[in-house]
């Protein structure tokens, strides 16, 4: 290992923790610092160009290559990214960002305000559906000088400061993409970003290798020399990889929930549930409320009453989940704790079914409902089986339809289902995460992530529209609170639980989870011993 300032800093960082970790000397800490981190990755991302693909695995890798203007702390407050300062005008219509200076693209070209304007106004609105929606209220974006960008909005959009992380609005190099076909630009294969790491090699099916950006604008950072993302398709192999030290970090559900209690017991690993606040996925039982029994909200309530969600959390998710109280998950802004609703109570469920006039036939069956199984892993399959069994006790006969991912997404978005499961990223703000799911203007056949339930409530529409424009923080919070109360009463979808993904780190791994986007963050200060 050659000695340079960075390595000294690295050993210094290790040394501050020397008392905690019991290093005899600085030398020992020095000797243990390897500068190479290996992260488990599955599935393999289709591409690393974050403007074109926003799958989570792509974000995990490309979040170190590309950067957004902002990132978010665990409470979802904006933190500096490529923007070092920002301000909002009193009328909520003008947002001004001061950009970091001395930032260079990986090819050496300087990064300026023009890249920001190009990305958020020209490129992303054409290729990135979430960015298209998030920047729709922008009237103009102007580079006031090389390091200042000003956005003028048509109407207030109070979620605006929440849309700038690297997956929602990755800043792309204008000098490479401007005037080209973004989708076929050869640079998509060798992404050029401003991030602390650059792509060295991608061996498909095997690993992705990132190396330190020696030109990074923050002196002495990043601390790591290189990051490997090892692609491991089999869940038992991922566990072995973690246990024998082949990988240092696993995230999301890469370790089967069934193994998590054992990992939790082990002294070799650290576990955190932080870093998922931005996604904060909420698992739901989804209804197609257009027809059949589930069109009646009494039936939907009866179903929720007949499902023991605590049982699911304990026995199927092995504690990697928490009860949901509504259709917005708790880390999200403006979340309102409406208290435990629709508790497990088969008596209540049968009372509701009685009220609907659904009487048991000779076999004890009151109603028959199809459940489109979601093919996203064992737990979801088990969840379907549990729900089937549980609902049979109140006389609801569930017929499970099995699918594969391609078929599921297609049938779901085209409304070819009665009930199914899903889980929804919240993107930190109800205006970004759930408006799209319950606003009547968002009912669109064939579109994934739209109002698939077919839910229409004029008051909900009005509240969504007004809340996002409301400048007054308190009034806005009250509106989103009211929305959550209405939604839980109408129950267009049934909240089941908040998924608590876990990042597992081998002892000695530091600073991989520092913000609300967790291991998708840039790993500027991450270290490994």
């Amino acid at each position, binding site marked *: 290992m050659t000695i340079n300032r960075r390595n000294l800093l690295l050993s210094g960082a290790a040394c501050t923790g020397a008392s905690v970790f019991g290093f005899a000397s600085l030398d020992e800490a020095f000797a243990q610092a390897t500068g190479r981190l290996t992260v488990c990755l599955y599935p393999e991302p289709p591409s690393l160009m974050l403007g074109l693909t926003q799958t989570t695995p792509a974000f995990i890798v490309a979040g170190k290559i590309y950067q957004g203007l902002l990132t978010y702390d665990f409470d979802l407050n904006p933190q500096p990214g490529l923007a070092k300062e920002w301000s909002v005008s009193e009328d909520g219509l003008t947002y001004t960002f001061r950009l970091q200076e001395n930032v260079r693209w990986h090819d050496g070209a300087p990064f300026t305000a023009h890249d920001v304007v190009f990305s958020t106004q020209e490129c992303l609105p054409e290729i990135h559906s979430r960015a298209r929606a998030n920047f729709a209220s922008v009237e103009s974006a102007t580079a006031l000088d090389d390091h200042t960008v000003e956005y003028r909005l048509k109407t207030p959009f109070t979620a605006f400061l929440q849309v700038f992380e690297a997956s929602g609005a990755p800043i792309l190099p204008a000098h490479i993409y401007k005037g080209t076909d973004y989708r076929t630009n050869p640079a998509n294969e060798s992404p050029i970003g401003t991030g602390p790491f650059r792509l060295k090699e991608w061996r498909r*099916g095997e690993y992705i*290798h990132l190396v330190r950006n020696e030109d990074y604008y923050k002196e002495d950072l990043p601390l790591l020399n290189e990051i*490997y993302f090892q692609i491991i398709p089999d869940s038992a192999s991922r566990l072995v990889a973690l246990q024998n030290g*082949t990988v240092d970090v696993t995230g999301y559900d890469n370790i089967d929930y069934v193994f998590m209690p054992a990992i939790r017991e082990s002294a070799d690993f650290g576990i955190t549930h932080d870093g998922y606040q931005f996604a904060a996925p909420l698992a739901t039982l989804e209804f197609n409320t257009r027809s059949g029994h589930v069109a009646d909200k009494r039936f939907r309530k009866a179903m929720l009453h007949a499902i023991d969600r605590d049982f699911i959390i304990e026995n199927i998710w092995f504690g990697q989940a928490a009860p949901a109280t509504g259709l917005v998950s708790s880390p999200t802004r403006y979340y309102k704790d409406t208290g435990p609703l629709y508790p497990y109570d088969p008596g209540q469920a049968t009372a509701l079914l009685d009220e609907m006039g659904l009487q048991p036939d000779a076999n004890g069956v009151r109603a028959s409902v199809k459940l489109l199984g979601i093919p996203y892993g064992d737990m979801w399959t088990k969840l379907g089986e549990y729900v089937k069994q549980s609902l049979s006790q109140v006389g609801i006969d569930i017929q499970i339809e099995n699918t594969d991912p391609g078929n599921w997404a297609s049938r779901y978005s085209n409304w070819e289902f009665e009930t199914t499961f899903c889980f929804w990223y919240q993107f930190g703000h109800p205006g970004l995460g759930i408006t799209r799911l319950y606003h009547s203007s968002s009912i669109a056949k064939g579109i*994934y992530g739209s109002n698939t339930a077919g839910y229409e409530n004029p008051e909900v529409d009005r509240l969504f529209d007004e809340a996002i424009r409301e400048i007054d923080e308190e009034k806005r919070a009250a509106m989103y609170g009211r929305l959550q109360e209405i939604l839980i009463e109408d129950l267009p979808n049934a909240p089941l639980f908040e998924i608590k993904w876990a990042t597992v780190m081998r002892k000695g791994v530091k600073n991989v989870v520092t913000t609300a986007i967790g291991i998708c963050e840039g790993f500027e200060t991450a270290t490994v011993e």
Partner: protein
Amino acid sequence: MLKAGLGRVIKVLMVLITVIICNFALVRLAPGDPVSVIAGETGASDAAFVASLREEFQLDKPIHVQLGTYLANVATGDLGYSYRQRRPVADLIWERMPATLLLTGTAFVLSLVVGVASGIFAGLKRGTWGDNTLVVLCLFGYALPAFWLGLVLVLIFSVWLQWLPAFGMQTLGFTGTWWEQAADVARHLVLPAVTLSAYYIALYTRVMRSSVADVQSSDFIKTARARGLSRRRIIGVHMLRNAALPVITLAGVQAGQLIGGSIVVETVFAWPGIGRLALDSLLQREYMVLLGVFIVTSVMVIALNIITDIILAIVDPRIRKAAA
């Protein structure tokens, strides 16, 4: 001879075109399309997103037009473009080829050598304890599912004994001379190759064993023995050449699977081969990549069938004569 060759070429072309059309129809029969998969993975989409992807994937055209375009492209050697991964299909397949061939090729040689050797041994020593042991082992080889065998081998040799790596094709970031790197890959190769071979070793042993036993009691062997030939010569020249025929036919079948790789073994051992590429493409409805894999695989199967025929003709004069 020339006429026969020409006939064969036409036959091969017919088979290929049929394979392409059938597969094209088959993959389209699976409900769902790549656009819905991408939208599902992304977690968000809108009408413009779906429309632009459909256009890019050329799913907006009628299916017979798509098939026509595809056939024309394949005829010029163009296997198409993966819009999901934004790379040519041929690249995606070629970069998986070395890993696939290394794994399946090693398994092929391993199973042939071990299978034939133990088959000869068992066939010559029928009824002894050695033979009985082999027969029992063969039963295991047949019956064990590859994923289970793979996991057990990992548990024993990687987790408990820590002799061999559990998965992957090389140690990440390993640097050394080419020789050390080759040794590193070889260490990674052991478990997947053994897992993949187990079934075929059992198969070859069984076939070779009964074949040796059959040939042993045939007249020409008795004659050879009566002529006072050495045991070594009887076994090596007269017996094996005849006993090997069914094994060669079987090996031809296994060789056909060389290119296709093995989805199960590649998944368990995180081996970056073509089987995983095919499975991922199927799940993600990447029609072009899947069709590309099918085409490359069928060409290989056809080629290996021809090679098998030639080898059989060399080994067995009766086939040679019948062909002439």
